[in-house]
């Protein structure tokens, strides 16, 4: 369970950004790829703990889960991956190793109240 470490990093980044902007953070928006190695539920559970006694206490964590998109060399096209257990093109079945999307672990936006 490394989601608490991730949650602490989220809180640090959000505080830093909020300090620049001024105001109180009421929500934090993240994008998490299916291959980022982070479980959204565990992160939500850790977030409250990570916020305790910080200016972010009481803020909401909003997570957008990002599916994996691969590039199929045979089709020469981007394709959504159907399963992490099967890295092959959903159209032609060729093995795919080029990952175009799905590793994101990103703080996208903050909602700030004055």
């Amino acid at each position, binding site marked *: *369970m*490394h989601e608490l*470490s*991730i949650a602490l*990093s*989220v809180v640090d*980044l*959000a505080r830093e*950004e909020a300090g620049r*902007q001024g*105001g109180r953070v*009421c*929500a934090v928006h*993240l994008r998490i790829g299916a*291959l*980022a*190695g*982070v479980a959204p539920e565990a992160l939500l559970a850790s977030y409250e703990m990570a916020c305790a006694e910080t200016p972010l206490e009481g803020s909401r964590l909003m997570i957008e889960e990002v599916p994996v998109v691969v590039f199929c060399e045979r089709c020469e096209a981007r394709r959504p991956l159907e399963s*992490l*257990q*099967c*890295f*092959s093109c959903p159209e032609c079945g060729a*093995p*795919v*190793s080029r*990952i175009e999307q799905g590793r994101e*672990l*990103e*703080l*996208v*936006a*903050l*909602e*700030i*109240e*004055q």
Partner: protein
Amino acid sequence: MSHEPRLVEVRRNILKQNDLVARELRHRFREAGVFVASLVSSPGAGKTTLLERTLTLLGERFRVAALVGDLATENDAARLARSRAPVRQITTGTVCHLEAAMVQRALEGWSLDDLDFLFVENVGNLVCPASYDLGEGLRFVIVSVTEGEDKPLKYPTIFNTADVAVLSKIDLAEAVGFDREAALRSVEAVRPGMRTIALSARTGEGMNDYLALLEAALQSSRETAATAP
């Protein structure tokens, strides 16, 4: 008077701090001409045994050292000291993975110029280490034959951040009814084209392939460093 909250776009990588330290480490390793390989596996897959053999065998011809991550004990460092290579322990406490900054701290006071290979043994865990770049040149993910053929299917993310899959304890394959082809298919399913080596650190089977891969990686990293601007 009430104000609607305003949405401020940020777009920052949450692990940026780790990635920056990892990048610094990678640069430092390249400058020093040391090749860094990390080992990840679940607890009990044989990382420490493999590392002990690696340090002993490569140590006959190269200058080798290791950093070993462990939650609580220093037993691994004591075991590895038998290889006579310099070994430092990183005790992570309750943290289930190594981070680049832990590697950086553990290297304080070490002259990397005096090394050819540095090995970094992660904490036994196939989940958490996947998110953290440690600045290594190659990441080996190790699965022992006693863990079953479908381990890659259960942990696709770690296989997608590693470079080489090692099937360890291959001397026990027959005793536990291990299906090597099925295991290779599992690796191929989650990471097509992934390099795979089956070995036994105890009997020595497959060790030559593994050591040859490391030597080739050292050579190619030094050639790249020499031609880089």
